[in-house]
């Protein structure tokens, strides 16, 4: 039996380990953010400069002076010309937000149907979805490119959005959450006269909201960080996402790490904001399997 003293020691040791791990994970972010404000000499210095001696913003100035593109293009309608990095950021936010919203809608509906509706082939369908989770992205890449080309979506932001929307993991996650919706509540709604759509929107969605929150953040991060898919599907400069854009800059200006650091800091910012907002749901989503089985 663990004594009170032992418990105290256990707590202190765990805390120290957690602090060390947190610092380790924070370090790249710290290095990028401080690096974005360092001079070129400090960045390239052989002995690491841990803190900028002078906070400079010229990396950001250079980043925003590079290239120009319209803020948006919808058919023939184009926005004001802005620095390329801003356009990439707009592209990335649009891609991640639309993918997130569409995935949440489709996955929650599909998950609910698989969990609560009885229809022929339900188990086979779910097995297929679970199998699809095991497929590496590289395997479906060629068919996906051909599909997008046929649909006329190649080199369009939708080519990276649509493949995310049918995310099998999202359906799986939402099915697990929907299993927790008591059947009697759905029956009560049925007797009360609620249509399927009304039952889903007014009764089911509020109950599985934590799951949708977790899925939203998973999808957002997944979509934001899906460098590989973006690299394959997008090629025109104005269609690039922020990570692709930074990569192209790396190729052209292999020595100017300042711009790259500034771009990376800019790319990390929305993810951090989203994480802070949905943090509660994110942890709920991760621990869900542990409590619901």
């Amino acid at each position, binding site marked *: 039996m663990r004594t009170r003293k032992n418990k105290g020691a256990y707590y202190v040791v765990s805390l120290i380990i957690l602090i060390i791990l947190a610092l380790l994970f924070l370090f790249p972010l710290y290095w990028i953010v401080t690096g974005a404000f360092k001079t070129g000499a400090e960045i390239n210095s052989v002995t690491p400069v841990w803190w900028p001696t002078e906070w400079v913003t010229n990396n950001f100035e250079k980043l925003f002076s590079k290239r120009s593109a319209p803020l948006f293009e919808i058919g023939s309608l184009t926005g004001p010309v802005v620095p390329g990095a801003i356009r990439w950021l707009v592209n990335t936010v649009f891609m991640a937000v639309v993918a997130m919203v569409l995935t949440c809608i489709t996955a929650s509906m599909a998950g609910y149907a698989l969990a609560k509706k009885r229809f022929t082939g339900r188990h086979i369908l779910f097995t297929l979805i679970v199998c699809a989770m095991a497929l590496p992205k590289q395997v479906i890449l060629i068919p996906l490119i051909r599909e997008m080309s046929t649909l006329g979506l190649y080199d369009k932001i939708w080519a990276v959005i649509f493949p995310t929307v049918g995310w099998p993991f999202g359906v799986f996650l939402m099915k697990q959450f929907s299993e927790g919706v*008591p059947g*009697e*509540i759905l*029956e*009560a*709604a*049925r*007797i*009360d*006269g*609620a249509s399927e759509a*009304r039952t889903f929107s*007014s*009764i089911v969605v*509020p*109950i599985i909201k934590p799951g949708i929150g977790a899925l939203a953040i998973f999808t957002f991060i997944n979509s934001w960080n899906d460098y590989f898919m973006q690299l394959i599907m997008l090629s025109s400069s104005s269609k690039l996402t922020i990570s692709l854009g930074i990569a192209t800059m790396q190729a052209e200006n292999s020595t100017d790490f300042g711009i790259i650091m500034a771009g990376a800091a800019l790319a990390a910012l929305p993810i951090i904001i989203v994480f802070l907002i949905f943090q509660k749901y994110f942890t709920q989503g991760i621990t869900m399997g542990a409590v619901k089985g």
Partner: protein
Amino acid sequence: MATLQLKNIKKIYEGGVEAVHSFNLDIADKEFIVLVGPSGCGKSTTLRMIAGLEEISEGELYIGDKLVNEVEPKDRDIAMVFQSYALYPYMTVYENMSFALKLRHLPKDEIDQRVRWAAEVLDITKYLDRKPKALSGGQRQRVAIGRAIVREPKVFLMDEPLSNLDAKLRNQMRAEIIKLRKKVNTTFIYVTHDQTEAMTLGDRIVIMKDGWIMQIGTPQEVFDHPANIFVAGFIGMPQMNFFDGELAKNGEKYQLTVNGCPVEIGESLQQALKEKDVPSKKVIVGCRPEHIELSSADNALKATVDVSEMMGSEIHLHLNCEGKDIVIRVPSTKLSAEHRGGFEFGTDLKFAFPADLIHLFDPETENNLI
């Protein structure tokens, strides 16, 4: 008018499992029917078929004059209260109660009026702005009932609504349901596995076992004249005692012996046996614990005390009668001061059956001989 007719209703699940067999029942307008039976007897399945939550495999269900087999639950003009309350967790009590009315597009004033009336009837007005999780079990169940009564349904269905409550609250809510029934004055179909609820609430009780109806009758009828051994054992607490007996027809008179001791048969029972022309045969004799009397007569049956339970106003004696366990209830007032607190283990006692309060069952069919 909300009469119900269940004609040869069957429920056959995938794989051929028949959960309800040929269920026939006519329910009168404003009648309170209780479906009672042990777990798995098909009572909830029957209720769910009436609600439209389960498909009816065979047979016909009429609500009023309308065949409703294929009618959606919302169009059957029914309301249902579930065992788990089934309240919408993210809605307030008011929203829970008004949900169905909003879906029917009733005017706001009317919705408000109905919800407040129901809340007053159930004494939950002060909780209208709370979410279900902020309520106790009893309050939640009131909300669930409130949600049903605001709809002013033709038929009120209740699926073990008190099962999740503790014993004290259950008694209280049972009384509330009796009062509620007088206020809403509609047809009730109530499912329970608790025979006390069945006896106290029902105008008529339907006792079920393994998907079959065992008996339909008023509480008094099923208690006084159980159709078979199952009903006799199910209704009554503690349950009826059963003995192996021998019935002999001796001219115009019947004679009964249990464990070799003669047992007197009352005049009405003699008459009934004669009318049915029951031949001499082995029988199962049933007698309720409260009807068995301690006796000092020479030809009384002998037993020894296993357990003596002091219940306050009475004592429950668990006796061993020639290897058979029986229970008898003895009012404390009928005992001497010495035994008012109970009997010692191993005490030898004698008991007798009152002549008119015994039941005779056929050992083969298990049906009541009368």
